[in-house]
């Protein structure tokens, strides 16, 4: 299939092709059956493959994930949907204590090839508990792979790879990108897990982004070009496994790095990336590694979320603090005084 495709359609195609290609694949969760999911990602799958392959479950997230653990032990490859990021928390014990650990605690004898799909992050005007950026919880849990696509062809390819992967994958689907369109030919196969993509080459500074902030970083790079910045944009694609090599190579080249993520900055994935960049690129850095993130607040009401989410202006402001003129960042001087 070639033409203009949304990310939602690409994800749907990935599930369809996976169901058609492997009878062990089963899709289940809340409203994923005849309705096709609240975001319609499973649209038409029950009709095409039957209620045995794509089915609704009781409304209980721990049950959904735990049931998938059992089915995976029994030889199936479950792909479950947890309806919203902030509704996934009842399943957290199952994910942290069992999904992530089963391979390790059985010394490799029991593996859980399963995918937990979660509509993720903000930007859609969702009311409370519909827009958390929860990636750090999963990324902090060894044993999980954590994936978030930013482009339409990656959405297809990464989801197919997630389903084929022998390890459990938390697959975070940026809600605001569901309706993003691109010209693609499916089935598409992009780079494998663990490889970040340089979405835009540049020499002056590196913007590191993942999932929903990749388009924001791209837009900021366009705007910055008008101010004379030649920015490189790195799309992580998989938070775990993390591609140190690509990020390190980019920052060693540019000497400056800004990480862009929607989640609260404190103890987040951006903090981990900043630490890794500093450890590996210290002698190449011309400026502190900066983060543009959401504030350290509970996710705001929809009419205020645009104040919270990273945007082009905030990224441009961060660029101003990258000491291109060898001026230190005044924000962090004692008493806030200028140098």
């Amino acid at each position, binding site marked *: 299939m070639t033409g203009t495709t949304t990310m939602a359609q690409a994800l749907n195609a990935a599930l369809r092709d996976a169901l058609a290609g492997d009878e062990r694949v089963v899709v289940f969760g809340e409203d994923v059956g005849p309705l096709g999911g609240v975001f319609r990602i499973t649209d038409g799958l029950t009709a095409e493959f039957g*209620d*045995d392959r794509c089915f609704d*479950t*009781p409304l*209980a997230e*721990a*049950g959904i*994930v*735990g*049931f*998938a*653990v*059992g*089915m*995976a*032990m*029994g*030889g*199936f490859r479950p792909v479950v949907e947890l309806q919203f990021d902030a509704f996934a928390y*009842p399943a957290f*014990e*199952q994910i942290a*204590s*069992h999904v992530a*650990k*089963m*391979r*390790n*605690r*059985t*010394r*490799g*004898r*029991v*593996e859980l090839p399963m995918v937990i799909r979660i509509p993720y992050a903000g930007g859609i005007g969702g009311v409370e508990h519909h827009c958390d950026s929860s990636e750090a919880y999963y990324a902090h849990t*060894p*044993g999980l*792979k954590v994936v978030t696509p930013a482009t339409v062809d990656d959405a297809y390819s990464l989801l197919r790879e997630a389903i084929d*992967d*022998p*390890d459990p994958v938390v697959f975070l689907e940026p809600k605001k990108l569901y309706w993003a369109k691109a010209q693609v030919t499916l089935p598409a196969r992009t780079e494998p897990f*663990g490889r970040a993509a340089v979405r835009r080459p540049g020499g002056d500074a590196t913007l590191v982004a993942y999932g929903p902030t990749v388009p924001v970083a791209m837009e900021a790079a366009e705007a910055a070009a008008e101010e004379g910045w030649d920015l490189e944009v790195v799309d992580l694609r998989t938070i*775990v*496994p*993390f591609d*140190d*090599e690509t990020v390190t190579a980019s920052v060693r080249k540019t000497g400056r790095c800004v990480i862009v993520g929607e989640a609260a900055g404190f103890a987040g994935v951006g903090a981990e990336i900043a630490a890794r960049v500093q450890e590996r690129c210290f002698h190449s850095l011309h400026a502190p590694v900066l983060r543009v993130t959401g504030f350290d607040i509970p996710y705001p009401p929809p009419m205020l979320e645009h104040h919270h989410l990273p945007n082009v202006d905030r990224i441009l402001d961060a660029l101003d603090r990258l000491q291109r003129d060898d001026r230190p960042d005044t924000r962090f001087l004692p008493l806030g005084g200028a140098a």
Partner: protein
Amino acid sequence: MTERHHDGGPEALLPSAQPVRFLTDTGAAVRSRPRYPLPDSETLRQAYRAMVVGRRFDAQATALTKQGRLAVYPSSHGQEACQVGAVLALEDGDWLFPTYRESVALVTRGIEPTEVLALLRGDAHCGYDPNRHHVAPQCTPLATQTVHAAGLAYAERRKGSGRITLACVGDGATSEGDFHEALNFAAVFKAPVIFLVQNNQYAISVPLDRQTAAPSLAHKGVGYGVRSERVDGNDPVAVLAVLSAAAEHARSGQGPFLVEALTYRLESHTNADDATRYRTDAEAEEWRRRDPIARLEAYLRRRGHLGDDDVTEAAAAAEEYAARLRTRMNADPELDPLGLFDHVYDVPTPQLGEQRESLRSELEAEEALT
């Protein structure tokens, strides 16, 4: 889903008014005949021997904690009828989902006792191969494995394998959300799974009346459409009879079955606990009178299915089992620190490779110093 989940009204799902019993406290046959078939005498003889060996194993494991050979051990002393019954009611291909208190069930299943005790010794999280024995890793978080048992049972149903699963939980775990989600999923998807609740009256120190206001733990099944039963958990004949019927129910496509077995944890929660702080000796004495091994021995002797030779032989086998366990547990386990990085993922990430190298250098430096 249009399947009918059960025939008849809710009454058909409810447990018996009194826990099912075949034996009196002293091992005589009860007068009113239970509605479950009597297990055959060969299975009961097997159960007797397994309980004797299991109890000796349990005592040896507790002794090993005192010698510092086990980090901790949760005893199932007094619960042998449930431990052994759960295993004998299953066929080889069926799956068992145990908790940390099911060590006796696991050795009854034929798993090497040193492999069973790896978790509690602390050299591995699971010392045996779950796929080989069809026994999931012993689960420490409460009730979480019940949902896995439902999912695996459903997988077996989908494959048409005829296999079933049995998940063990205690009374405390029936308060956990996962237990309820497991009952619900199992019922909705007609998963062939048995939930065996060993109600040993205490969740560490918290007594049953603080755990629930339900008429019984078995009554929790009816709200989910799950056939439920209560059984005297210290009556090995009744436990085997009810669990065998539950297995038949599940295997024949009628869906899940919940069994509450009333029993008593004669020891503390673990060797690190002190039961005298929350219960009386008199209470424990009451339960000692209903000892499952003594009851079954009395019953089988009366029926002529067990003689002095059998009793002597079982006791000798138990001593031999314990002696072999002692010897093997007195040897330090072989540990491979670099193995810590194995099996986190199918293929280690580059970062894990780096961390493995760093530990390897540390170990080599230590080695050079000694």
